[in-house]
């Protein structure tokens, strides 16, 4: 960016400091282009009249990252076998420093994640943001919703108390009533004809490795498509309809999730 000529000259100390900060960044940029990529991602152009509701996607992403982080730490103390699972949960909650907080974050964060997912989905639906050319991103989002619910289903068994056991029994048998392949699906899910040690470790592996991996990959695809296709204007947008005052390419920079509504600025 060109420096405005009226700006006062920087002091030598500040120049030195800037050089010291910029050196590693420039080093990385020269060898990887990552800094430029990050700048492109964070400071890309979005329509001038984006809305606070368009921050729900980033909120969902944040909720997922919190789940990933807290879950990883919980895995350091949790023991997925029938004799130790519940005692390890009790130990995490009652004995280990900070365990109640991290487990609570994971437990309640799961609900927050699903709630935000649905709110984000509702925003996309009501803004018509699923329409051409963004249909594929809607499909990816639906897959993410399904995977998120599977996370809920598999995670529910892990405390290994009466609620988990019988809720999972009901859930698996519910799958089992699906026509034709249902019985096979149920038996596959529980790793046999009844819930036992293998079911617990199976659900644990699915919960903490298989599905999160898939979710990370699909979030990557989701964000790639968001950046590639751009952000939609709200349905009431005068800009998008070509009648607003901020035509002629006047758009505003914003960070993903930190776009400012500008209706007031547009004199409305």
């Amino acid at each position, binding site marked *: 960016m060109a420096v405005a000529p009226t700006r006062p000259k920087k002091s030598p100390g500040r120049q030195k400091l800037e050089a010291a900060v910029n050196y590693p960044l420039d080093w990385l940029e020269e060898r990887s282009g990552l800094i430029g990529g990050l700048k492109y991602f964070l400071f890309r*152009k*979005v*329509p001038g009249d984006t809305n606070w509701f368009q921050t729900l996607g980033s909120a969902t992403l944040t909720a997922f990252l919190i789940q990933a982080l807290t879950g990883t730490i919980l895995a350091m103390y949790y023991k997925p076998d*029938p*004799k130790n699972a519940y005692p390890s949960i009790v130990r995490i909650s009652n004995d280990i420093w900070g365990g109640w907080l991290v487990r609570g974050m994971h437990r309640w964060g799961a609900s927050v994640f699903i709630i935000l997912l649905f709110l984000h989905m509702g925003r996309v639906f009501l803004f018509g943001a699923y*329409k*051409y*050319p*963004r249909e594929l991103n809607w499909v990816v989002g639906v897959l993410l919703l399904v995977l998120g619910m599977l996370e809920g289903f598999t995670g529910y068994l892990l405390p290994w108390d009466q609620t988990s056991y*019988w809720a999972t*029994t*009901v859930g*698996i*048998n*519910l799958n*089992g*009533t699906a*026509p*034709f392949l*249902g*019985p*096979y699906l*149920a*038996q*596959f899910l*529980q*790793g*046999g*004809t*009844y*819930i*036992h*040690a*293998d079911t617990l470790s199976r659900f644990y592996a699915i919960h903490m490795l298989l599905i999160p991996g898939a979710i990370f990959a699909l979030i990557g695809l989701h964000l790639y498509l968001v950046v590639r*296709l*751009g*952000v*939609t*204007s709200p349905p009431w947008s005068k800009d*998008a309809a070509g009648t607003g005052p901020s035509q002629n*390419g006047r*758009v505003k920079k914003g960070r993903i999730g930190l776009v400012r509504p500008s209706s007031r600025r547009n004199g409305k």
Partner: protein
Amino acid sequence: MMEPQHGDRPHLPGPSLYPIAFAAGVACILVGLIVSPLIIAPIGAGIAVFFGYLWARDATKEYRRTPAPIEPEGAGTDLVTAPPPPPEAAMAEPEPGERFPRSRFLEASTLGLGAVIGGLVTIPVIGFMVVPPFKGQGYPTVDLGPLENFPEGKWLITTFAEHPDQGLVSHRTVFVRNNGLLNNEPSFTIIWNRCVHLGCPVQPNGPVQPDQKKVVTVSKIQQISLTPTLPAGGFGCPCHGGQYDPEGNRTAGPPVRALNRYNYSIVNGRLVLGTPYSVSHVDGTGKDARIHAYKLAGPGMHVDGWEQIFYPVQPPH
């Protein structure tokens, strides 16, 4: 710079009423499955197939159109006035060996080899995940102790470990009643406590007498507990309210058949639990009961009636 706005581009294919008619057909199938599976559902299926076909044809109209033949450039009189130079001059005719050039071969072999290696690695791993749940399943026989512990006409809540080495997770409950002698053989009713709606544990609808509980140690790792109960009101499920009479017939709620039962045998004066089986319904009571037995099916699955077509083959269990 303005981000490209795609919203004003025409949406292809254009709007049509076929998807709506197709959806109406699907709705008709769903309604028909409940109201009249033999008349309304097939009509709905017909509507859905017909309009689905029209929809697909309409949607693919653009793609199915045969491409217009491309006129060679400068066709016509130019050919007469200026005959093209011999082909060799423009580009040499590929040698017979060059039909499938080396680079194409390397490309294909790299991709092919990659696919083969990927398959060789993936297939056993996926198999490792999928196959074990279906191998070596089954229900072991369980010794429930001497016959004297089961007084005639009394219901006993009987608990045991199906796989004692696995601990509490294989804890099972059955309701056992000694029906007295039938053709000089002891007759038992053994009802599995798992609700045939979705597998929750049903409870006796009547008093339980825990003060008369008896624990029989069968082996070092197997303990049988026997608690008398009077399930005058049959059995009830706490999860979704399924109700059964004392023979296990469904009387109310969401279950689709009667409670599962267990086969049994008498070995050296001891009651030995065999394999479970499913029951559509039971006529009569006690030792005179006529049990309509079927191969074991999972909870929520119909074993009789037209709905059984949805569960043609049960996995090995």
